[in-house]
């Protein structure tokens, strides 16, 4: 059996689906293949789906802020397509970035000013009014509960925060990818599931297609790697691609916790997204009046780089498999317990363990490759969910331009944002770049 498409996109998560959508709008006949049963079921489903704009670079802020405009107008973005599963909801809670030593908030504020992000400066009283359960002492530096100093009494107070009213989170990340899939299908895209790629084929230094595990060969002159935590495996399948990348990707294990909100605090209705570098956590509300507690990867926490196939099969043992670890449960919940002293922490861990597709400098690779016809949108490092619709458009334009002869490696494409008045040098995301030491080397991006 041989089928022919203009482009095959490997992966149907929240980045893979919008690339198909935007390419279909440009007239490409696309096919997404995904090894899981439905769109967004992979690491997208494990995403916290936070939509915030604070990044350490102005370009990072700009891209995220451009993304806001898509989430705030979701139905229109989808061209009012119908999805039998319903539409994902953008929960526009606003986001508080606490001013702390854990974040370069001055840089963030300067970036907000440069990009024109709407924000307010809040003092501690204002924060306390918004989040009455919060204790605004400074607990820096971030430590682990195994360290006796973790329990030291705080003496100083924090100095307020920066509130960004347009931020929030998406209530169902897997559903958002499904929505984009339906929108793409309405423009002619095809999706197949339970389809694992085992080979990326090329001839005479040009992409020819892919081969699936069941032997099916599908031909296309363009293949895009959006394999999430499996991205490095896909790159290795394509001749010369992995070797041609200066920035590599690998899978990083990451735990997110669900801890019940104090009874007196209606977090699900009254709560904000909050980035708290002072305790190395970020939080957002979750159904059931829970705090979803993510980690900002403080230096004291272990990093577990794992084989994605082993991980998803539940192998690797304590702290490396797909079961929450009690140590990390305590670390993240107790840290938040300092900020919210009335937070009751159950003994039994509850939450999500999934993988980041992490690049060497925690900045994604949105690029072509050394193999003509092969492209990649990889290394999203736990912080690109919010950018997905922007990346979809940017990648589609990049692919289209390269296919029409652009020498992107030497004359990088300049991507003009659709909503905000700014241009992005796509060369910033090059696979050939040196490690960007301006990066936070964390989920903060």
């Amino acid at each position, binding site marked *: 059996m041989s089928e022919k498409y203009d482009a095959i996109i490997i992966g149907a998560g929240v980045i893979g689906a919008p690339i198909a959508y935007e390419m279909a709008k440009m007239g490409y006949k696309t096919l997404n293949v995904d090894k899981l049963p439905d769109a967004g079921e992979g690491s997208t489903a494990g995403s916290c789906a936070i939509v915030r704009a604070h990044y350490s670079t102005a370009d990072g802020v700009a891209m995220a802020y451009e993304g806001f405009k898509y989430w705030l107008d979701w139905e229109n973005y989808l061209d009012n397509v119908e999805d039998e599963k319903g539409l994902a909801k953008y929960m526009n809670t606003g986001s508080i970035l606490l001013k702390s030593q854990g974040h370069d908030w001055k840089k963030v504020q300067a970036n907000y000013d440069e990009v024109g992000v709407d924000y307010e400066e809040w003092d501690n009283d204002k924060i306390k009014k918004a989040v009455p359960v919060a204790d605004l002492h400074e607990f820096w530096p971030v430590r682990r509960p195994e360290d006796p100093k973790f329990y030291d009494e705080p003496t100083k107070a924090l100095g307020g925060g920066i509130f960004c009213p347009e931020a929030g989170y998406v209530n169902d990340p897997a559903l958002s990818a499904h929505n984009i899939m339906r929108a793409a299908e309405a423009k002619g895209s095809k999706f197949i599931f339970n389809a694992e790629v085992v080979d990326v084929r090329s001839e005479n230094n040009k992409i020819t297609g892919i081969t699936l595990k069941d032997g099916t060969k599908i031909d296309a002159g363009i293949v895009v790697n959006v394999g999430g935590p499996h991205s490095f495996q896909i790159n290795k399948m394509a001749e010369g691609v992995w070797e041609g990348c200066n920035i590599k990707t690998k899978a990083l294990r990451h735990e997110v916790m669900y801890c019940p909100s104090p009874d007196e605090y209606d977090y699900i209705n009254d709560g904000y997204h909050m980035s708290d570098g002072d305790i190395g956590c970020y939080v957002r509300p979750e159904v059931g009046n829970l705090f979803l507690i993510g980690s900002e990867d403080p230096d004291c926490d272990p990093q577990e780089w794992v084989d994605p196939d082993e991980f998803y099969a539940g192998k690797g043992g*304590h702290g490396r498999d797909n*079961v929450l670890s*009690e140590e990390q449960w305590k670390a993240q919940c107790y840290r938040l317990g300092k900020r919210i*002293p*009335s937070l*009751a*922490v*159950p003994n*039994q861990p509850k939450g999500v363990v999934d993988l980041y597709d992490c690049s060497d400098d925690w900045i994604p690779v949105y690029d072509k490759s050394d193999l003509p016809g092969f492209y990649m949108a990889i290394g999203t490092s736990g912080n690109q969910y919010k950018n997905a619709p922007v990346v979809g458009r940017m990648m589609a334009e990049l692919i289209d331009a390269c296919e029409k002869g652009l020498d992107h490696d030497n004359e990088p494409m300049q991507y003009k944002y659709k909503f905000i008045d700014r241009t992005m040098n796509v060369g910033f995301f090059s696979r050939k770049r040196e490690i960007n030491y301006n990066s936070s080397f964390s989920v903060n991006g």
Partner: protein
Amino acid sequence: MQIYVCVRHVPDSAASITVTGGAGIDQNIAFLINPFDEHAITQAVKIRDKIQGAEVIAICLGPDDAQKTLQSSLAMGADRGVLVQTSENHDSILTAKALKTAIEQDGSPDLILTGKESIDAEGMQTMFRIGALFNFPVVNNIVKFNIQDNEAIVDHEFSSGIVNRYKMTLPCVVGAGKALNVPKYPTFPDIVKARKKPVKKIALTDLNIETVTNSMTVVKLEPLLQKRNPEEIKGTAVQAAEQIVQILKFEAKVIS
């Protein structure tokens, strides 16, 4: 009044359990306080808070790692802990003897609480054996508890949902069921306080328990393989509902 709560250090119910050597499990997983014991601790703390001078002591037979389970008990409000250290896994016969001896050496119990069972062995044995050794009355799976005039009035729930009320003279042993209360989980300030509470450690061998002649050993452990035969229910909502009722009535037999 001294209230002893026997707590057990059990595998996290979410852990991937691997059988090793035919009769044991791979121990490289997280162990936590037995969830039913959380109800026992919560109840003990409630009783203590109403009685002046009362004290809650959490006691555990287990490895060094079981200190975590005692810390959880202390954070949930127990006043102090006793760890009877052993590196082996013991049957309920020896566990009951060890706990009884340790309790006797520590104080004089007016009330002993346990969870209704441990989620690993699910034996429901230890509380009855402790009761027999002390010659105290025992009621397991209690869903309501009151103390009046040196008597414990408890509601015991059968698996069928039938509830019987018993009166027992103190001291007695009760096994806490899930419906007894909502566990009161600790806040960070509770956790900080618990770090300063005393935990006494005694080696099992130092308890000088007389030789136990009877014992139970696990001969073989086998993972339960669940056979699933999914069937798709088709048709309109009304037809689907009818089919579901048929299945619940005649196949699952959960409604009549």
